[in-house]
């Protein structure tokens, strides 16, 4: 913790020196308008903050590299820093020193309202035209009609079950109900955002609660979700946040059902089919990630070139395939190494995504538009989750 602090002070120091050095160019961005363009060929350096696997420069695997070609083509230098959770990303962006970030929906709004990001002029990003329509102008990347970035990819938090141990489930009830055939061997995601998974299940099992959006919960709805989580706790073997640990637990048989990512199921099915992954009838939570630009960037031209580069069909295909998610660019599907990739991840099926509730940051003003009640903001979710996990 101390280390982190020292580092963030160093970053703040570096960032403020940079700001002082180039105050004139950044003042118009800080005013809140998007960059007018045109994108110039100014060389520069951009510091990229990304989920692991989103900005590969060949250091993880020499064959996986879409950063070096970008550097050669544009003359921009790229430094990549990866992070493990949305909360960590928010903390690092707030400390400053990063020019672009790949943010999930539960991080993006916090950063936008915190003044850490700038609106993006999409006319300057030619590849944006090919992005799937159902990813454009969504609440986690667009605020007050202003776009804040370009979509990278998306995925659903699927229900994974071990073949031969558990019959293919059609409902999330297998992880929530006390009479579950997998009880004692269930896993759940170890983050406050998992409360939304409980809300998704309540949407169909308790319609009288009137939940429209699992991220917009008033006190009654929230209490119902927490009660469901408490009912689930005795059934849980472990909560997971580290996916390699998850893989080991499934292989050893100590976990047979629970929420998961498609990429985890793929790893488990690498040598022989071990698990199935399905999106149950209630729908599921999911993520949709967006590349965004810091409000304090000094290298605006390189930042725009990066946003355009990262959603180029070929790059988007590589990145989505490497990470294991659905690409955002509709033309990427033709360019994946595995021709079934888009089918496997349902990239082109609009119906598949209609009941996927992408991660968003809950706010006091209800995200579903209700004005007669107050919803619980994310800070309250975190507080409740921490208390729940330790009770």
């Amino acid at each position, binding site marked *: *913790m*101390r280390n982190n*602090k020292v580092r963030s002070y160093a970053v703040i120091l570096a960032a403020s020196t940079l700001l002082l050095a180039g105050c004139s160019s950044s003042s118009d961005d800080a005013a809140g308008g998007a960059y007018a363009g045109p994108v110039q060929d100014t060389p520069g350096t951009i510091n990229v903050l990304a989920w692991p696997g989103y900005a590969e420069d060949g250091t993880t695997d020499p064959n996986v590299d879409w950063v070096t070609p970008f550097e050669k083509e544009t003359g921009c230098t790229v430094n990549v820093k990866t992070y493990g*959770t949305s*909360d*960590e990303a*928010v*903390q690092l962006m*707030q400390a400053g020193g990063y020019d672009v970030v790949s943010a999930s929906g539960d991080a993006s709004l*916090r*950063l936008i*309202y*915190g003044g850490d990001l700038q609106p993006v002029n999409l006319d300057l990003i030619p590849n944006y035209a090919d992005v799937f329509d159902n990813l454009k102008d969504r609440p986690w990347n667009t605020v007050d009609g202003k776009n804040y970035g370009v979509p990278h990819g998306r995925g659903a938090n699927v229900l994974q079950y071990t073949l031969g141990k558990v019959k293919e489930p059609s409902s999330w009830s297998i992880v929530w109900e006390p009479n579950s055939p997998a009880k004692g061997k269930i896993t759940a995601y170890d983050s406050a955002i998992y409360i939304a998974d409980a809300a998704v299940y309540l949407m169909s099992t308790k319609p009288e609660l009137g939940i429209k959006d699992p991220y917009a919960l008033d006190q009654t709805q929230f209490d119902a979700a927490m009660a469901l989580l408490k009912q689930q*706790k005795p059934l*849980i*073997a*472990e*909560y997971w946040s*580290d996916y390699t*640990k998850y893989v*080991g*637990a499934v292989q*050893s*048989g*100590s976990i047979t059902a629970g929420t998961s990512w498609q990429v985890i199921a793929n790893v488990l099915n690498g040598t022989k089919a071990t698990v199935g992954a399905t999106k149950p009838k209630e729908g599921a939570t999911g993520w949709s990630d967006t590349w965004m630009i810091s409000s304090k960037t000094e290298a605006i031209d390189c930042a725009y070139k990066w946003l355009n580069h990262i959603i180029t069909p070929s790059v988007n295909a590589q990145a989505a395939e490497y990470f294991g998610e659905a690409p955002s660019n509709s033309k990427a599907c033709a360019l994946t190494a595995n021709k079934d990739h888009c089918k496997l991840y349902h990239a082109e099926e609009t119906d598949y995504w209609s009941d996927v509730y992408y991660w968003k*940051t809950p*706010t*006091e003003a209800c995200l579903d538009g209700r004005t007669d009640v107050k919803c619980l*903001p*994310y*800070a*309250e979710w*975190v*507080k409740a*989750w*921490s*208390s*729940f*996990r*330790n*009770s």
Partner: protein
Amino acid sequence: MSSVKEILNRKPTLRAASLLSLPLLWLGVIYIGSLFALFITSIWKIDTFTSKIIREFTLENFIDVFTDRAYFNVTIRTLFVAICVTIICAVIAIPMAFFIARIAREKSRAVLIALLITPLWASYLVKIYAWRTMFYPESGFINWLISPIGGSSPGFGIFAVIIGLTYLWLPYMILPIYAGMEKLPSSLLDASSDLGAKSGRTFFSVILPITWPAIIAGSIFTFSLSMGDYITVQILGGTFQMLGNVVYQNFSLNLPFAAAVALIPVIIMMIYLSSIRKSGALDNL
């Protein structure tokens, strides 16, 4: 050069200051300073939406910690684990240290000490993941070991955490006790048996009182290391959590609250150390 030497010779205060400045800097600035920073952070607020720290005074973090029953329970659980680990370590370490210090031959003593220290050469994570594979409920080594006699592995949870931590911190208990037992004069043991005491009596009336400060020294290590651990708990604990996990879960989103929670083990350690100091056990270290 000689002038510096002369000045230092003439002025003893300067000599002492130059000698002590570095350790004092370490203790004062880096150690006490960070504890103070922790305390200051715990009385600040955050913006509930963006998680940014607002430097305004509030006691809300402490109220949250002390009014929520969950954090009282987790404190009790953490104390319980730390006490169990310390007691188990002591029970294993005392006979082992006695054997190495008093019974083993001179030549094998060095080998035994080396064997004791070897686990410290391996990475903490490797050791804990090894225990994880052993504790797997169905396919683990422990289950294989006890299933023939009708038992089954306890799986992940508080029991696995206590075993894992005991394994990790055992050398820190054995080494001080070994050092204490080595200093024990043989004449006392001889006198005890000459006066007719059986070995049990000798142990409780002679050996234990003399090595008590060494046991206390070892317990400070095992107790404080267990109080603060969170990684072993994550890997072996299943759904079980300790104070360190509360800090870990909250620090990125609510640093002031995490700081308030982090002060609990600090306070417990202070109480522990001051009660030990009163008992006089630290005088002989």
